[in-house]
C-alpha cells in the first residue's frame, strides 16, 4: 500500500508537465474509460439503463470482480473512486420507507402556486408540494428538487459531526468537529413559533475543534418565500460579537472543504437562478439505510466501504446555472423517487465540462435506530431512542470529492432527532444567542 502511495504522489508532482500527454493517452486507451469524467459520459451512462438480465440480486456482497454489473448502478463519473481492489458492497433488498403518518395530511399546505421559473409561491410545508411527478411535465425537474427541499426529516435534529479532509493517498490534511442544530418552523398550516410564519427553518452550527475554529458559530434562517435570501450571522470568538454574513454568495469552497454551499444535499441554491431539465428515472445503488456511519475505503480513503447499499429508483435532474460566471456548466442530481433524499450529485466545470465536484450521501431510517443504532459521536453521547417513531431519514454523512484538485472531504454525522418547543426554539435560534459564545 505504501508503495502505491509513493507512486501516486510522485506522479501527481509531474502532473503539470505531463498533463497533455496523459490526456492523449486517455483518449487512445480503452482501459482509461473509467477516468472519463465528462458531462457527456454521465449522460451516456444515464441513457444506458440496465436491462432485466442485469439486475443486482440482494443479500450478497459484491466486490471488484463484479464491477461489470456494478457499473450499471454506480454513475459513470464516480467509477474512478468507487471501484478499487478490496471494495466490499453489501447489497440489501430494496425497501419501502413510509413517511410520517401525518405527512401530506390535513396540516399540509395545499394552497400554493408555481411561477414560470418553477419556484414555489406560498407553500408552507407539511407534505410534499408535488406528491406526483409527471415525466412529461416541463417543470418536473424543479418539482423534484422542491420536494427534496421540503422532504420530511430535513430538519429537527441535533447533528454532531466529524469531517476529514484528505488528499490523494489518504493523506489527512485536517479534521474538524462541529455540531448543527436545526429546526423546522413551517409545518403547513401552522408555524412552530406563532408569529414567525415567514420562517421555513433555522439552524445554528458551532465548531468545537480544531481550536483555531473552536467556538465559531453561525446562525442561518431560511424563509418560506424562496425569493427571499437567507439571513446569516457568524460569531467569531476572537471578535466576541456576531457579524452579518452574505447569503447570496454560494459558489466558493467553505473552510477548505471540497464543497460549496450550493452543493448542500445535492442542490442548496435558488431554483430561479437555474435552467432545469428532468432526465427521467434511473436505478442507482445508494447508501440509503446504512447500519452505521460507514468506514472510508479506496486508495485515497474517500468513499464508503464495507457498508450497505440498496438499488433505488432515482429522479435524475439536470440543473444548468443561468449565470455565465457560475463555476458549473451543469449539475446532475439523483434524488430518491420515494423519499426525495439526494443520493448522488455531480457538477461539471464550466471551462471544460469535466467533473469538478461530486457528493454522495449516507442515510439511515429512524425506525431502525432501536435495532441497529448508529455510531456515537466521539465527543458526545446521545439517546438515539429519541429518533425512533419519526419515520424519517437521518443524514449520517457524505463524501464530497473535488476531481480537479484532487481532494475529498468525508463527513460523519451522528444525527439524532430533536423536538423543540416554541419557547425553546425562539430562545435558542435567536440573535440574542449569537452575541456571545463559548468564549
Amino acid at each position, binding site marked *: 500500500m505504501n508503495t502505491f502511495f509513493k507512486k501516486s504522489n510522485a506522479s501527481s508532482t509531474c502532473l503539470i508537465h505531463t498533463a497533455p500527454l496523459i490526456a492523449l493517452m486517455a483518449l487512445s486507451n480503452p482501459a482509461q474509460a473509467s477516468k472519463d469524467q465528462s458531462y457527456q459520459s454521465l449522460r451516456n451512462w444515464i441513457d444506458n439503463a440496465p436491462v432485466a438480465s442485469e439486475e443486482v440480486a440482494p443479500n450478497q456482497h459484491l466486490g471488484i470482480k463484479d464491477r461489470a454489473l456494478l457499473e450499471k448502478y454506480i454513475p459513470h463519473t464516480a467509477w474512478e473512486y468507487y471501484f478499487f481492489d478490496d471494495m466490499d458492497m453489501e447489497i440489501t433488498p430494496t425497501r419501502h420507507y413510509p413517511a410520517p403518518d401525518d405527512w401530506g395530511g390535513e396540516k399540509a399546505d395545499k394552497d400554493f402556486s408555481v411561477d414560470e421559473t418553477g419556484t414555489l409561491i406560498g407553500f408552507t410545508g407539511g407534505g410534499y408540494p408535488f406528491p406526483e411527478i409527471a415525466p412529461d411535465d416541463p417543470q418536473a425537474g424543479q418539482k423534484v428538487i422542491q420536494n427534496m427541499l421540503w422532504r420530511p426529516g430535513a430538519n429537527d435534529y441535533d447533528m454532531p459531526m466529524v469531517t476529514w*479532509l484528505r*488528499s490523494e493517498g489518504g493523506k489527512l*490534511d*485536517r*479534521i474538524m*468537529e462541529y455540531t448543527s442544530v436545526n429546526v423546522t418552523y413551517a409545518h403547513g398550516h401552522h408555524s412552530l413559533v406563532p*408569529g*414567525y410564519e415567514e420562517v421555513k427553518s433555522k439552524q445554528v452550527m458551532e465548531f*468545537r*475543534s*480544531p*481550536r*483555531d475554529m*473552536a467556538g465559531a458559530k453561525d446562525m442561518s434562517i431560511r424563509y418560506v418565500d424562496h425569493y427571499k*435570501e437567507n*439571513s*446569516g450571522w457568524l460569531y467569531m*470568538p*476572537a*471578535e*466576541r*460579537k456576531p*457579524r*452579518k*454574513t*452574505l*447569503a*447570496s*454568495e454560494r*459558489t*466558493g*469552497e467553505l*473552510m*477548505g*472543504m471540497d464543497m460549496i454551499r450550493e452543493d448542500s444535499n445535492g442542490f442548496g441554491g435558488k431554483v430561479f437562478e437555474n435552467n432545469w431539465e428532468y432526465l427521467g428515472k434511473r436505478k442507482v445503488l445508494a447508501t440509503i439505510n446504512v447500519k452505521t456511519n460507514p468506514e472510508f475505503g479506496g486508495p485515497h480513503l474517500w468513499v464508503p466501504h464495507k457498508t450497505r447499499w440498496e438499488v433505488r429508483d432515482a429522479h435524475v435532474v439536470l440543473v444548468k446555472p443561468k449565470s455565465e*460566471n457560475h463555476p458549473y456548466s451543469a449539475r446532475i442530481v439523483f434524488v430518491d423517487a420515494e423519499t426525495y433524499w439526494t443520493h448522488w450529485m455531480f457538477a461539471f466545470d464550466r471551462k471544460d465540462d469535466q467533473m469538478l465536484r461530486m457528493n454522495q450521501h449516507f442515510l439511515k431510517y429512524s425506525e431502525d435506530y432501536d435495532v441497529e443504532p448508529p455510531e456515537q459521536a*466521539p*465527543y458526545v*453521547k446521545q439517546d438515539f431512542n429519541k429518533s425512533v417513531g419519526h419515520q424519517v431519514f437521518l443524514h449520517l454523512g457524505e463524501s464530497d470529492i*473535488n476531481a480537479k*484538485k484532487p*481532494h475529498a472531504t468525508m463527513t460523519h454525522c451522528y444525527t439524532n432527532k430533536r423536538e423543540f418547543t416554541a*419557547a*425553546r426554539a*425562539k*430562545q435558542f435560534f*435567536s*440573535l*440574542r*444567542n449569537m*452575541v*456571545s459564545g*463559548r*468564549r
Partner: protein
Amino acid sequence: MAAFRPKLAAVSALLMSVLVPLPSWGIINIGDDIELEGFVKTMNILKTGARPFNDGELTHQRNTAQLEGKYYFLRDGTAFNRFSTGPLEEATFTFLGRAVYDSVFDLRDSYDVLDGIGKEEYKVREAFIDFVMPPFSLRLGRQQVVWGETDNFRALDVINPLDRTWHGTRESWEDIRIPLWMARGIWDIGKIGAFDETFLEVIVIPDDFKTNKAYTDYPRPWAILGIGLQDQRANSVLLGDSLDDLYDLSVNVIDNTEKDTDIRNVQGGFRFKGIWKDVEFSVNYFHGFSQTPGVKVRSAGLIGDTFETVVETVTPRINVFGLTANYSEEKYTQSVIRLETTVTSGVPVSFAPGAPHSADVDGDQYDTAHQSVVMIGIDRPTWIPALNSLRTFFLSGQIFWRRWLDYSSYYRGTSFYEVKPAKVGGTVVPDRYISVNNDKLDQDEFVLTFAASTSYGAAGLWKPLFVFAYDPRSRGGYNKIQMEYLHSKHLVFRLEQHLYWQAGNEDVGPWGLGSWLAQPGIRRNETVFTATFQF
C-alpha cells in the same frame, strides 16, 4: 529565571497532564460536564528598525500557555445531575487562564532596568457563570463585552479597557482587552410590532474600573513616550531666549485615576437590538469613565532655579450614546454594509500652554469635550479568479470619521509629547532636554482601513491576510502582511510583517500611524513569527 521556572513548570505539567493521557484532538472532555481547551504559543518579534529589514532587534520572545474550561453544572433544569431548578434551564461556569513568560528578558541586558515588568503574567483573565432562564439570560463575573460594528477602532467598543503597551495589531483584541467584573443580563423579547429578533441587554460594572494600559518608559522598544528623542526624559524648561531662562524641570504627578468603592462610581449601560425590514440595528448607551486619563495642571511656576509643576491625572465621566446598523445587500453589490455612530461626552483633552482664558477657563490646561464618530464599513466575499479559483476573497473596508463637536484650536492631545535637546540661540545645551506638545488636534480625524483574506491549498491550510490603514490627514499608513499555515490539527505557524510609513507630513495624527509608530528610531516595523500548539 529561577522564580519563573517552578511556575512555568507547574503550568506545563498541568497542560501535559491534560494533553498526554487522552487521544482527543479537539476540546477535551472530562466526564460529561467539563470541557477543556487551550494552547501553548511562542511569539517572536523582531523589530526591523529605522529602515525596513535593517537594524533588527529581538523585542519579544513571548511564551504563552492558555487554558480554557467550561463546566456544565446545570442542564435541562437539573443541577449537578440531582436537583431540579425549575425554570432555570442551564448554567455553566467558564474560565480562561493565561500564563506568559517573555524569555527575551533573559537574552537582552538592556531590559535589566525594566525590573522584569512585562516579563511574566499569571492570570485568570476571565471567569464567569452563565444562567439561562428563557427568555432571560445572565452572565456574572469577569468578562469582556463587545458592542458595535467597527473593527479595530473604538467607538462603542469601550466597555473593557485595552492593554496598549505593545500589542497593537500583533494580538487580537480578544487577548488585549482587560476583562472586568460585571453583570450582563439579556431579555430576549423577539417580535414586537415591526421589529424582529429584539433583545434588551443591560450591563452593570459595580466596582471595577481600569484605565487603558500603556508603558511609556524607555528602553522598551515599543514605548510611546512621545516622538523625538526616546532615550531621554525632559529635565528642563526654557522660559526665554537666554541661557538664564533655562531652568530645571520638576514634575509631580498626582494620580487620581483610581476609583473608590462607591455607588457613584458604578458604570453601566444598555443595548436594544433588533431587525427592522431586514436592517439589523441597535441603540446603545454606556455611562462610564474615560479609560484614557486627562492631565490637569494644578500648579506651575518657578521655585528657586526649578520650574515646579504639579499635575493631576483624572478619568472623567463619559456618556456614550450610539446607534449601529447593518444590512445585507444581496442583489446589486452583494455586500454587507455596516454602520456605527456615537456621540461621547466627557472626553479629556489638553489645552496648549498659554491658551487664552476664553478657551481654558479653569487655567489648568484641561477640558472635557464632546466627540462624535461615524463609521461606514463594507464586507464583501469577492471572486478574483486570477488569484484564487477555488475560494472567494473576504474584502472588508471601513471609513472611520471622528469629530470634536465643541472644538477649540488650542486643543492638544494628551499622549504625545516631543522630547528634544534644549537650544539657546541656536546652540544645543548639553544634557538639557525639554518637552513640547505639538500634537494639535484636528477637528475632524479620519482613518481608512482595508483587509483582504482568503485561503490556498487543497484543504485551505494556507491563509494569507493583507491589512492596510491610512490616515489621510497625517498621511500616515500601516500595512500588515500575514501568512498562517495550519500545519496539523495541533500545530499552527504564522509569519507577519508590519510596516508603518508616512507620506510627507509631520502631523502626529490621532493614531500615530505616521508619527510615533513610523519615525526613524522608534518605527514599529516588525517581523513576527508565531508557533502555536493548540488543543
